[in-house]
């Protein structure tokens, strides 16, 4: 199934444009930002589904009219103008199916604003082998759209690059479950169960009219059914929240696994810095204490050898008996000079025995009494100084030891801080810290929902028991009333049918899940450039997609943007294959989230995909620059999108 061509008339930038597309090659549209690439996607959506899901914020904000601005400018007031998009689709080489949506506007008002003139019409033209043309409108035409790309799964055909990257990051399980549900047609079985249950309620009501007892049980049953639905909805919501939380926790765990625990390290650093600060203060005070001690005792210390010497001399003198002094040399010299004893007043002559005795006495005295007294006077302070000096040594040794010990501690703490800092250097600590916070908040969400889930599941169990009991009571009552036999038969029949329909639905969903899982894995390994890096891709029973690396670890959260895109495309292609819808894939800016060497590989993958299905890509010239070696006019059908000088009309040039 391919889009053969698209014809535009007055649609946004596309005034009068016809774009023929290739069925065999990758179709590549290159145009600057804002030129109208995305509006090609919008045009297809508008034509098929009557909506434009990819309008830019600017277009939405200023509510640009859907009609081409040049057409509006050239129109006469009151003139009726059409906006038309036509898509030619070819299925299995048959005659093309032509989807046409046309909206008519009247150009009115001061600003020539186009106002809807009549309801838009949607037609599908089909021509058979004999050339007979049939035109379908309304619901019949919409049936043809459902054959091309069903509304329910159109999001697997029309992508923007950013969404493709996020595809397996957000509500994965919901997306996959939804897709399987849509393509397996189990929605029909769901409608059957819902409608049968509504009719069952009608039958119960009818029976209730005939018996007050039955009516009472019916009312209770309906209340329980409603409560069961509520409980199931809450359980689903809890499970969904737990899943989202777990996915995010895993993603953050993967992100955090290769990086240091910044928060722990930072708090350790802070702790050490406080310790360092405290020790530094003590260290400084010890230094001051030492300095003060040195200052206070400096003179004593400088004279310490002299002090010691003097004390030693005094001690020696004392030992010799010179201290305290035994005679006064001055007095004896005066006696000799005067030849008169100063004590008794007797006189003596030179050479006398008295003179000799005095001289002998003088020879025996080395120290004058003054010096002796002086020595005695200074002995006590000198001893104090000596003690101070001795104590000083002790004190200074102790302080020096303390200083040394604090210095050692400071050096060790500084080293530890340095080591810790080096562990986080080069890492964006704010980002890492934010990841850890995010992880913690998701853990809280998970825990809260786990608690709530337990409560709701218990509630549901009780409700189920009550329901079974009441249902039996109802069956007994219905049996008792012979006139209600037919109603009972119909209720039994409906209940059996609903049970069978539910089990078929689950069986089909399971079969489809398995097939998609196998096909996704096959496709992923076909398209991926480093197959040996991975060993499994799987969609499990809970509809969770997982991808494991060659070491056996889950790595969905940490694969690159390019790899995620390949995974999403593999899943999409497997959906296409299993569903049987072979419609083209259109991707707006497919390389937005791809970087580095992955870009080349992803482009190669595009070429591979284009071999088996029509692929249409939209790129900016900048994005194209780097990949022109791979995607070029030899490998692709290329178009350049340019605006006219007045910026009101787009020109499509085939390259």
């Amino acid at each position, binding site marked *: 199934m391919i889009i053969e061509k698209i014809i535009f008339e007055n649609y946004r930038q596309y005034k009068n444009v016809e774009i023929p597309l290739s069925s065999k090659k990758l179709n590549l549209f290159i145009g600057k930002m804002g030129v109208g690439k995305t509006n090609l996607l919008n045009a297809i959506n508008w034509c098929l589904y009557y909506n434009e899901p990819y309008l830019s914020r600017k277009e939405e904000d200023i509510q640009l009219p859907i009609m081409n601005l040049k057409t509006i400018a050239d129109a006469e007031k009151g003139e009726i103008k059409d906006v038309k998009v036509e898509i030619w689709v070819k299925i299995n080489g048959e005659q093309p199916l032509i989807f046409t949506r046309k909206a008519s506007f009247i150009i009115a008002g001061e600003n020539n604003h186009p106002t809807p003139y009549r309801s838009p019409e949607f037609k599908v033209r089909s021509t058979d082998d004999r050339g007979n043309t049939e035109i379908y409108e309304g619901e019949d035409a919409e049936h043809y759209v459902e054959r091309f790309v069903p509304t329910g799964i159109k999001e697997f055909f029309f992508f923007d690059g950013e969404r493709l990257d996020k595809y397996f990051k957000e509500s994965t399980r919901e997306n996959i479950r939804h897709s399987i549900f849509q393509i397996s047609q189990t929605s*029909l079985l769901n409608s059957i169960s819902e409608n049968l249950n509504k009719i069952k309620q009608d039958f119960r009501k009818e029976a209730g009219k005939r018996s007050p007892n039955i009516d009472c049980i019916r009312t209770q049953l309906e209340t329980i059914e409603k409560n069961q639905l509520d409980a199931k909805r809450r359980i689903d919501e809890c499970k969904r929240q737990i899943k989202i939380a777990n996915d995010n926790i895993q993603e953050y765990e993967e992100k955090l696994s290769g990086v240091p625990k910044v928060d722990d390290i930072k708090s350790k650093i802070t702790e050490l810095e406080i310790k360092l600060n405290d020790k530094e203060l003590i260290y400084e005070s010890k230094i001051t204490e030492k300095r003060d001690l040195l200052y206070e005792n400096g003179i004593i210390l400088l004279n310490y050898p002299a002090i010691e010497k003097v004390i030693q001399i005094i001690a020696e003198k004392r030992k010799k008996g010179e201290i305290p002094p035994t005679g006064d040399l001055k007095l004896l010299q005066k006696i000799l000079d005067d030849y008169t004893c100063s004590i008794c007043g007797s006189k003596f002559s030179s050479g006398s025995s008295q003179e000799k005795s005095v001289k002998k006495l003088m020879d025996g005295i080395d120290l004058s009494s003054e010096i002796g007294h002086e020595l005695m006077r200074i002995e006590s302070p000198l001893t104090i100084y000596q003690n101070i000096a001795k104590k000083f040594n002790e004190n200074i040794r102790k302080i020096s030891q303390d200083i040394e010990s604090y210095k050692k501690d400071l050096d060790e703490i500084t080293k530890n801080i340095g080591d810790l800092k080096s562990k986080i250097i080069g890492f964006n600590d704010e980002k890492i810290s934010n990841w850890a916070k995010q992880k913690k908040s998701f853990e809280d969400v998970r825990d809260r929902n786990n608690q709530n889930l337990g409560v709701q599941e218990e509630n549901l169990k009780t409700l189920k028991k009550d329901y079974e009991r009441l249902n039996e009571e109802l069956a007994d009552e219905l049996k008792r009333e012979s006139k209600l036999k037919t109603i009972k038969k119909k209720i039994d029949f409906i209940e059996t049918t609903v049970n069978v329909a539910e089990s078929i639905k689950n069986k089909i969903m399971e079969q489809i899940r398995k097939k998609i899982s196998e096909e996704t894995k096959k496709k992923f390994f076909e398209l991926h450039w480093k197959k040996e890096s991975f060993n499994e891709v799987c969609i499990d029973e809970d509809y969770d997609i997982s991808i494991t690396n060659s070491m056996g670890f889950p790595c969905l959260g940490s694969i690159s943007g390019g790899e995620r895109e390949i995974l999403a495309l593999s899943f999409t292609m497997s959906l296409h294959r299993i569903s049987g819808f072979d419609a083209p894939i259109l991707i707006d800016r497919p390389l937005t989230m791809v970087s580095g060497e992955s870009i080349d590989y992803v482009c190669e993958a595009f070429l591979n995909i284009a071999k088996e299905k029509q692929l249409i890509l939209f790129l900016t010239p900048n994005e194209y620059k780097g990949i022109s070696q791979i995607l070029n006019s030899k490998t692709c059908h290329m178009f350049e999108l340019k605006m006219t000088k007045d910026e009101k009309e787009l020109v499509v040039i085939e390259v």
Partner: protein
Amino acid sequence: MSKGSISEHILKTIQQSTNDKVISDFIIELIYEEANHIEHWRFKSSYNTLIEKYSELWSQKK
């Protein structure tokens, strides 16, 4: 595969999933009703007609 065309797979699975042919035929008829109904379709009337028919057959078989 459109609303108008039911996949072979779903039809086969319905037939294989139950030994009760009345129930499987009934579900298949309902599937077609669901897939092919026109706008403003009142499901209750179609469903009731089919329930009438198939519940009768079902009770006879029982």
